[in-house]
């Protein structure tokens, strides 16, 4: 190898080493996206149920012969003209994929009440409830995805209490009880 080649090669090796070191400072731990499946499937199901998307897919699907396409078009136009006095365009609001759920907790002596659970990633501060009537009935409206949820109320920031109105309670594996909330959705039996 010529001296210049050797120097060049050494310089490149040095560069590679430096870049390896610099890139090595970056965090290479895997990125987890636990909510990804729910988000993706919710969008896909919305698209599947949208009549516009079904029509688009049908139109964009593989091939008709030119003659068949012309006949289909002519028939479609004729049908639309015939149906015009009877058709109504109905628009429905887009689904959010979540269901509004109202939780109520009676605690007349409490200064604060919050709720936490899997839907809040067990945030120890919880989601605050309010008492609009100023009496002992604390409430909150949550938007929850369909499925099974575990939750508890937090009274005055320190006392964790299950929901006496819950359909059922279950052991939490730590010697306490969680309340169980079932949110039925359109896609689950």
């Amino acid at each position, binding site marked *: 190898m010529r001296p210049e080649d050797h120097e060049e090669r050494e310089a490149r090796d040095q560069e590679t080493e430096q870049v390896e070191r610099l890139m090595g400072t970056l965090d290479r731990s895997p*990125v987890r996206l636990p909510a*990804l*499946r729910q988000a*993706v*499937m919710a969008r*896909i*199901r919305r698209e599947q149920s949208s009549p516009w998307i079904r029509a688009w897919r049908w139109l964009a699907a593989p091939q008709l012969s030119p003659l068949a396409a012309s006949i289909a078009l002519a028939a479609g136009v004729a049908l639309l003209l015939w149906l015009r006095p009877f058709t109504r365009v109905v628009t429905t609001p887009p689904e959010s994929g979540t269901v509004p759920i109202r939780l109520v907790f009676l605690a007349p002596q409490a200064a604060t009440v919050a709720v936490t659970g899997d839907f809040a990633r067990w945030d120890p501060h919880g989601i605050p409830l309010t008492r609009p009537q100023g009496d002992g009935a604390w409430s909150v409206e949550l938007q929850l995805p369909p499925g099974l949820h575990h939750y508890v109320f937090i009274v005055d920031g320190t006392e964790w209490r299950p929901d006496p109105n819950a359909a059922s309670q279950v052991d939490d594996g730590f010697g306490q009880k969680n309340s169980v909330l079932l949110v039925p959705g359109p896609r689950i039996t």
Partner: protein
Amino acid sequence: MSDGPTDAEVIEQVLDGDTDQFAVLVDRYGDEFARYAKYMIGSEDEAADVMQESLVRAFRSLRRCQDRTNFKGWLFRIVSNQCKTHITRRRRRSLESLDAATEIPAVENPVADAEAADLRRRVRQALQDLPQEQREALVLKYIEGLSLPEMAEALSVSVPALKMRLLRARRELLAKVQGVLV
């Protein structure tokens, strides 16, 4: 050892009308490219959005996946394109917001070393400042740990061309990082 259908079998079921089966592929590959997307875009939050968009697009165009035994490779190309689209659409992020979105405390050294943290920040910024092709080459090699032949297959580029791309990318990165360091 997990049982379950192959990717090709799942794709066939989805195309036959069993939409719910697509969730199997989301579970298998949803996190696979999230780290790549994070470093291509510079934000973990936005990477999550890009992964979501990529998977939905993959579902929509599933019929066009020609080699069903390599759904992963096909999905990667969608993710790569989505990253590029996302980058060109978005305005330049400020350095502060980049830090807030991507700074993750190192588990093995919980006590923050200010100098090391500063170097990390500079490297991340320099990476974001590189042309997308060069950034991608560095991310695939040094973050994802792919070999040159693997990168060549993923990017549909020849190995010699990749070597040249990496050479330029390394030089650019060093220039940007060293240009900032006094």
